[in-house]
């Protein structure tokens, strides 16, 4: 997995590339913990995320909980396979998703 960060004012775009699984979800959590101070809008660009497991979902849920307190969060360009997992777990209803 690779994470690309782009900060425009108070908008942070995180592009997640590859696979978000138990072996690397901690890395995303670490990035979130160190990057979200002062961020009002968090956008995940998931065009190149091809696989997500429960460890990755947990990281996304933590981000959503935090952003609900300080602004907003959305998932953008969600891949079909990832979308299925989001729907299966009810995450699709908890999060704002832009196709």
């Amino acid at each position, binding site marked *: 997995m690779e994470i690309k960060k782009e900060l425009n004012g108070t908008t942070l775009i995180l592009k997640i590339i590859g696979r978000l699984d138990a072996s690397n979800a901690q890395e995303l959590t670490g990035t979130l913990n160190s990057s979200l101070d002062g961020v009002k809008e968090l956008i995940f660009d998931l065009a190149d995320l091809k696989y997500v497991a429960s460890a990755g979902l947990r990281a996304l849920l933590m981000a*959503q909980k935090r952003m*609900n307190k300080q602004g907003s969060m959305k998932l953008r360009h969600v891949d079909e396979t990832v979308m299925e997992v989001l729907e299966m777990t009810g995450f699709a*209803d908890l999060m704002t998703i832009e196709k």
Partner: protein
Amino acid sequence: MEKFTIEATLENLPAVTEFITSSLEEKDCSIKIIMQMELVIEEIYVNVASYAYRPNIGTVTIYKSFEDTPPAITVTFVDSGTPYNPLEHEDPDINAGIDARQIGGLGIFLVKKNVDEISYERKDGQNILTFKKFF
């Protein structure tokens, strides 16, 4: 039936996944089925690797077998760690709002959603988890 024994560590996840997905690729399974199986294998294996022998390290043996009509794969995970039946886990409430959403329990829920049959047995000091998926 083929079997594969490996030290149950998180680092070995790719090798375990490969043991299963390589066969599915040979059988021309769809990408969708392969991804679902990757997810199932990851969730089961990560549980074993994280908890079964903690704080020590033990081994896990994985068996795979196939049927042709209808096409299906059966996979069994066997470990000698702490007794644990993941199927006893209550499913998370997937309709809960964000504040009530629990962080845990999602892994085994995803497993159940992506297999056709699953069973657990504790026998001779071993945890035996078997699932079947049609493809």
